[in-house]
C-alpha cells in the first residue's frame, strides 16, 4: 500500500487464535472460510482502512490494525464465515478495488503464511 498517513508504531500482529481444527470438523459442511486481503503498492493505506470501517463496521483501531497487517505482512485475514459469506465479501472488496481472495480456514486461522494450507487439508 502507499503510505499516506504516519501511524504509531504500536501495530501488533493480530491475535487470530490458532485453533486446532479436528479432522472431523474439516469435512463438516460448516467449515469456516477466511476472507484474505493482499498487499499491493497502489491502494492508499487510508482508503483500505476506510473500506474496513465503512463496509465491515469495524472500529478505527481494528481497521487500522488489519490495514497495517496487510501492509507489513503482505496479507491479513479480515473476516471469517461460511463460503457464501466470505465470497460475498470478496466481491464487495473487488468492487472497492481491494485485492481479496477466499480460502478454507485449514491452517488454523494463522496469518502471515504464504496462503497455502499447511498440514491437514479438508
Amino acid at each position, binding site marked *: 500500500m*502507499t503510505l*499516506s498517513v504516519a501511524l504509531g508504531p504500536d501495530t501488533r500482529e493480530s491475535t487470530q487464535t490458532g485453533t486446532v481444527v479436528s479432522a472431523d470438523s474439516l469435512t463438516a459442511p460448516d467449515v469456516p472460510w477466511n476472507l*484474505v486481503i493482499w498487499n*499491493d*503498492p*497502489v*491502494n*492508499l493505506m*487510508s*482508503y483500505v482502512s*476506510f473500506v474496513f*470501517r*465503512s*463496509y465491515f*463496521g469495524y472500529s*478505527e483501531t481494528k481497521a487500522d490494525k488489519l490495514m497495517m497487517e496487510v501492509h507489513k505482512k503482505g496479507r491479513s485475514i479480515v473476516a471469517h464465515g461460511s463460503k457464501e459469506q466470505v*465470497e460475498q465479501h*470478496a*466481491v464487495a472488496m*473487488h*468492487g*472497492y*478495488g481491494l*485485492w*481479496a*481472495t*477466499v*480460502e478454507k480456514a485449514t491452517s488454523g486461522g494463522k496469518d502471515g503464511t504464504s*496462503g*497455502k494450507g499447511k498440514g491437514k487439508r479438508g
Partner: protein
Amino acid sequence: MAKAFKYGLKGITGYLEPAERELLRGLFADVVAMLEPEERENQDPLSALIGLDMEVKEPTDRAVRRLLPNVMKDDGAASLEFRQLTERSLREGKIGALRAASLGLDKDDLTLTETDARHWSTALNDVRLVLAERLDIQDEADAEHVHLMQDWSQAEDVESYLALVYNFTTWLQESLVQAMVHSLDTQPGTRR
C-alpha cells in the same frame, strides 16, 4: 489548480479546473471501455440480465485482471466458476461508479453526497490501479520512484506524463478519503 476535497457543513466539496475535469473524464472513460463486457451474438439474454456469463474467461490484460481478480489464489477452476456468476455484475458496478463520477464533473459545483463520494473514491481507485499497471508499479520501491515525479515541466514522454497523472489522482483520492473519514468520524453510530 485543483483544491483538496474537504468535509464541511455542505458535505464533501472539491474544486477542479476545466483541464483537470477533462483529464479525469478521459481517464474514467478509458477504464469504462476496459471494463465493458464484450457483446456476444449467441449470448443468452436472460443470463445476461441476471448477471451470469458462462463464457467468461480470466482477463488477459494485467490491468483488467487487477480490477477483476481471481477469488481463490491457487484454484483457477473454482475462480473461473465464481467469475461466471459474479464478474458481469462486478464490471457493471464499477462502470456505474465511473460513469456517476464522470457525470458529476459536468456540474460546476463539486459537492458530493455520501453516495457520490463512494463512487468517486472507487472510480479514482480503479483509475489508479490501471495507471499503476501501465507504469509497472510492482512494489513499494516502484511506487516511491513514480511518486518523485511531481513537476509537470518534466513531462517529456508518455511514462513521465502517466506518472504525473498517477500522482495527481493519488493526491485527489487521498484528499477525498480524508474527507470521507472526517465525515464518518462526525457521524457516530452510522456504519455505512
